[in-house]
Structure formats: structure tokens, C-alpha cells
């Protein structure tokens, strides 16, 4: 028999029970839409987190104090440690180093105020992070040596306090009762509310250590941030940093009192987290797809029972098992594949809506609807149709014609 004609017949047979077929299809539509939309949102989240980590600057190594396990007499990281790492003869793979010490503070300008991270940094900070100034200049060695009360504003506090990002140099802001003169404003880097690179105020690390932050040791810093010469040399740079610190801190072998995190590690961690999230979300979608499949099986079983007489007649007229099997398989496949197609469309609508909402609320979440997800869902709905259609269709195909004709 002509396959095309069979497909048309399957459609017309489903059309006789429009509401029932529609509701059955709805199960698949929701399932497929859920899988694709969830995967799209998961992929979008992954892409945006990866972007944000990359935007911190490439080739970065972060060193913080404290080992992986308890170490006896741990020493804090100091500004001198940072200076030692900056020594080219000891660490040739390192191109720039900055010590960082930070705390959140309220920044005040006349009657405006905003909460922001205040970072005490070295002059190299701008190079380590590839930052660009919108105006003015960055902190330099003179400011560091002189413990000057100067500040560089990120774009967000600038916007909040002054309502602009230009012509701010020369103004003064107050942090914790100390007056700082603004010497520069950074360009915006973008990024989500979660991991903003723009909501920060930078002051010379020496000024911070002596006047703003209180730490146990006078020279203590929170972090040392290191830029490797190139991405190939990140691991080597990390080794060099580690050797320098082990010597300076007199650590025992295997008992480091500091932890080195490479940017790649952060990327790996982030992508494994978002990967799990994507699988989780996709799994939820998958379950609803499965439920949709059970719906198809259910309705096909009802249909076979209702049409027992029709099956008997078709067999009497010469339909073989495979003719009947094909007829009912085509009906369940028609349900599942059309449901899948509509589901892809619905997923696209959902993804677009999420994109619009995210953009309007300033979140960097752009759902990525890949061809692979669409293909996956199509194959999935096909398989669902085959799997859940097989049993009812087979029930129909093996009906004894005598019994089937006798049924009411």
C-alpha cells in the first residue's frame, strides 16, 4: 500500500476525534517544548557564565591563603609575597602581579550613596585584568608609596552616585568617613548582577591596608592575582608561584598554606555546575515527554479497542498483520511527530520570551536553541511514538479476525 496514502489516512482517522487527538498531542508538545526550552536555557546560562569568567581576564591565576587541609602555623599572604612573585628571575612565566584586599563599603557622594566592593590593589591590577579607563588615570606606584586617598570608580558606582560616567575626575567620595579623590573611571565590562565586574571601587593597596581594612597582620592581603605570559604557560606560572610561596612560607612538603586556583579550574567548575543544571532541567522535561508518551499509548489502546470491528473487517478484506501494524503505528507516529514539531515551535517561543525578559531585566541570559536540541527532541518524539505505539499496534495486528468481527 502507498505510504503517503496511509499517512493521509492516519491524519483523517485522528481528525475524527479532534479533541482527543489534540489532548494526547498536548502531552508530547509540552514534553518536547520543556526538553528543548530547558536545554536552551541551560546552554544559555552556561554560555553566559563562561563569558563572564573569560571577561575577568585571560591567563589568570588566583592565590588565596589557607591550604586544602589544616596546616600548622599557616602564614597569610602578604604584599611582599606578591612582590617576590613579580620578580622575573624567579617567575619568568608571570607577566603581571597584583595583591588584592577587599571589603564591601558604602560609598557616599553628597547625598547619594551606594554599596560597592572596595578593593585595595597594586598599580598592576589594570594590566592583570585588562581593564580600560573611560577617563582619568589608574592608581600608580606614587599613589601606592604615598598611601594616597585616591579612588578609581567602576562604571556602576559612578552611574549611581553621579548619574554619569564622565567628568567625574576631581570629585571626592567618602568611604567609611575617609575622603577619597576620584582619579579615574573604568569602562563597563558588562556581566550579570550575580557576578558584576562593574560594581567596584579601587584604591591603592597601601592606603587600604593602613586606613580602611583591618587585618591581623599589617602586610596581609586577601588574594594575589597573577597573569601568566600566555595561556600555554598558565600551568608553569602556577608552579613557579607555588615554589616561591613554599620557600617564603617554609611549608612542609604537601602542606601548602595557600591555594592556587587557575581560571581554567573556575571554568571547569562552572561548566560542570551548569552542565548538571542543564541535565537536571532536561531531565524534568524528559519526564514530561515520557508522560506524554504514556498518554499516546493509553489513547491508542482505547482506539484499538473501539475499532476492533474495523480491524476485523480490514483483516477479512485481506489486511495482513503488517498492514494493521503499520496503520496504527502511523497513527501514533503522526501524534508524536506532529506534537514534536509543535513542541519545537513552542520551545522557540518560550526561549524568545525568556531572552526578552532577561534582556529587559539586565541579565546576561540568552537561551541557546541548538540544532542538536531540536534534532534530539525530534528523534525523541519519534522514538516515543514508536515505543509507545508498538504495543497497541501489535495488539491490533494479532487480533483474530473472527473474534474482531464478532465484537460490537
Amino acid at each position, binding site marked *: *500500500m502507498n505510504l503517503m496514502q496511509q499517512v493521509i489516512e492516519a491524519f*483523517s482517522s485522528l481528525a475524527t476525534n479532534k479533541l482527543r487527538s489534540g489532548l494526547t498531542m498536548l502531552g508530547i508538545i509540552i514534553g518536547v517544548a520543556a526538553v528543548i526550552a530547558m536545554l536552551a536555557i541551560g546552554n544559555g546560562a552556561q554560555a553566559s557564565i563562561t563569558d563572564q569568567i573569560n571577561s575577568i581576564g585571560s591567563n589568570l591565576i588566583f592565590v588565596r591563603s589557607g591550604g586544602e587541609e589544616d596546616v600548622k602555623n599557616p602564614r597569610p599572604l602578604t604584599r611582599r609575597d606578591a612582590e617576590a612573585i613579580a620578580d622575573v628571575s624567579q617567575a619568568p612565566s608571570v607577566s603581571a602581579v597584583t595583591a588584592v584586599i577587599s571589603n564591601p563599603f558604602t560609598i557616599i557622594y553628597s547625598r547619594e550613596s551606594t554599596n560597592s566592593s572596595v578593593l585595595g590593589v597594586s598599580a598592576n591590577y589594570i594590566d592583570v585584568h585588562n581593564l580600560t579607563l573611560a577617563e582619568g588615570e589608574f592608581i600608580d606606584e606614587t599613589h601606592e608609596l604615598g598611601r594616597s586617598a585616591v579612588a578609581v570608580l567602576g562604571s556602576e558606582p559612578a552611574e549611581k552616585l553621579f548619574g554619569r560616567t564622565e567628568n567625574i575626575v576631581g570629585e571626592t567620595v567618602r568611604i567609611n568617613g575617609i575622603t577619597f579623590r576620584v582619579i579615574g573611571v573604568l569602562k563597563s565590562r558588562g556581566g550579570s548582577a550575580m557576578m558584576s565586574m562593574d560594581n567596584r571601587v579601587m584604591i591603592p593597596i597601601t592606603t587600604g591596608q593602613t586606613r580602611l581594612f583591618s587585618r591581623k597582620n599589617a602586610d596581609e592581603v586577601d588574594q594575589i592575582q597573577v597573569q601568566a605570559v600566555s595561556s600555554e604557560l598558565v600551568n608553569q606560572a602556577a608552579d613557579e608561584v607555588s615554589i616561591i610561596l613554599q620557600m617564603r612560607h617554609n611549608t612542609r612538603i604537601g602542606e601548602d598554606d595557600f591555594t592556587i586556583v587557575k581560571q581554567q579550574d573556575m571554568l571547569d567548575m562552572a561548566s560542570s555546575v551548569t552542565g548538571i543544571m542543564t541535565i537536571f532541567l532536561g531531565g524534568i522535561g524528559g519526564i514530561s515527554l515520557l508522560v506524554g508518551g504514556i498518554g499516546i499509548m493509553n489513547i491508542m489502546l482505547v482506539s484499538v479497542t473501539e475499532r476492533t470491528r*474495523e480491524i476485523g473487517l480490514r483483516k477479512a*478484506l*485481506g*489486511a495482513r498483520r503488517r498492514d494493521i501494524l503499520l496503520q496504527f503505528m502511523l497513527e501514533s507516529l503522526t501524534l508524536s511527530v506532529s506534537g514534536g514539531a509543535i513542541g519545537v515551535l513552542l520551545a522557540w517561543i518560550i526561549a524568545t520570551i525568556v531572552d526578552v525578559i532577561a534582556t529587559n531585566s539586565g541579565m546576561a541570559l540568552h537561551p541557546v536553541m541548538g540544532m542538536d536540541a531540536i534534532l534530539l527532541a525530534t528523534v525523541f518524539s519519534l522514538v516515543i511514538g514508536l515505543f509507545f505505539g508498538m504495543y497497541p499496534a501489535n495488539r491490533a495486528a494479532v487480533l483474530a479476525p*473472527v473474534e474482531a*468481527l464478532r465484537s460490537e
Partner: protein
Amino acid sequence: METVIEANNLHKTYRMGEVDVHALNGVSFTVNRGEVMSIIGPSGSGKSTLMNILGCLDIPTEGEYILDGENVSHLNDDQLAVIRNKKIGFVFQRFNLLGRITALSNVELPMRYAGVTTDRTERAKRALEAVGLGDRMYHLPSEMSGGQQQRVAVARALVNDPAIILADEPTGNLDTRSGEEIMELILSLNKERGTTIIIVTHDPRIAARTERVIRVRDGMLEEVEA
């Protein structure tokens, strides 16, 4: 005369729970090509069982059934389907038309299962014209009277040019006049085309119109003189 049906010692035993029910107990007879025959008998006599076996809807537990020169007693489901498709035209009491499709499509159905593609629609049209429904081809069964529906069923039965037409109470669901017309139509097929016809009925008046009558009683046959 050429033999179209040869039944040798047919037995059919059903298992109902713990007991064996012998629906047919050694039935033998032959039918010649071009004969018009009726099978009568009260319900429970084994009449339906015999009809199912003659229609290749079922196979005998024992004995041989040779239809149009082919022994069909031991064929499997799909082989029987092919035989039914080629050699048997069914007319049922309840018409058994598919309600969703037109009269024409209903008549085309046996040819579709036979794999006929080329002049299928033409042949179906000719069959409908032969039963006097040339002007109702595109009507749905629900748009036709009972007599007209049964005519469609007759057209469907003869469209594959079968060796026998097997009619199971063909007038049972019709009023007297329509029933009469259907009988005329079926008998005329025999006269005009020489088709072998077997009518299963419990109505003696229907049986009286056929040349030969076979009565089934307790799973056995007896020939009744016409």
C-alpha cells in the same frame, strides 16, 4: 463441472474452560463453480463456525479445506489474509463499511490490500455502477440507506473478482423490500458473471431461492432437496 470448494471431514473443536466443544463433527461436501448455495441451521448448530472456515477467517482443527485448488487448511494468519483478499468476497449482515471514508474508498479497500495501484479507482467505479450506485460514489455510508450500504458492500465483495462470494445473513438488517432487492442483486451476479455464491441464513424464504441448500445440525451436514 469444476469444483471450487472441497471440504473433507472438517472438524473444529473449541476449548471452553475445562470442556471441549465440538462445533464441527466431520463435515464433507463440494461446491461447483457457478453454484448458488445456502447454508441454514439454527444458532449453535456450527453454522457460523463453518462459515468462518469457508471464509478463511479460521482454520479447521482437523480435515482438509481446498478452495479454488489450494489447500488452505494449514495456512498462517497472513497467508489466509492473502487468500481472503484474492478469492473471497464477504457480504456481512451489518454491512461493515468504514464510516469515515466514501463509498468509492470503501470499495477500493480490498484492492489496496491486494497492492493494486494502477486502475484501482476505475475498477471501484465500475463495481459501484454494476450495483446501481454510480451516482452515490462520493457519499459517506452515513448518508446512505441500509439497502444502499449493502449494495456498496456487494460492490466491495466483487471488486477483486473472487472465486466465491460469501454472504452472511445479507438481508438480516434490511426491510423486506431492500432485502428483496439485495437478493436480486446477489443472484444476478451469479447469472451475469457466473460467480459462485454461498449464503448463510436462518431464513427459509431466502434459502428457498437458491438451487441447493445445506443444513447444519449439531456440527454435521445434511443435504436438503430444493
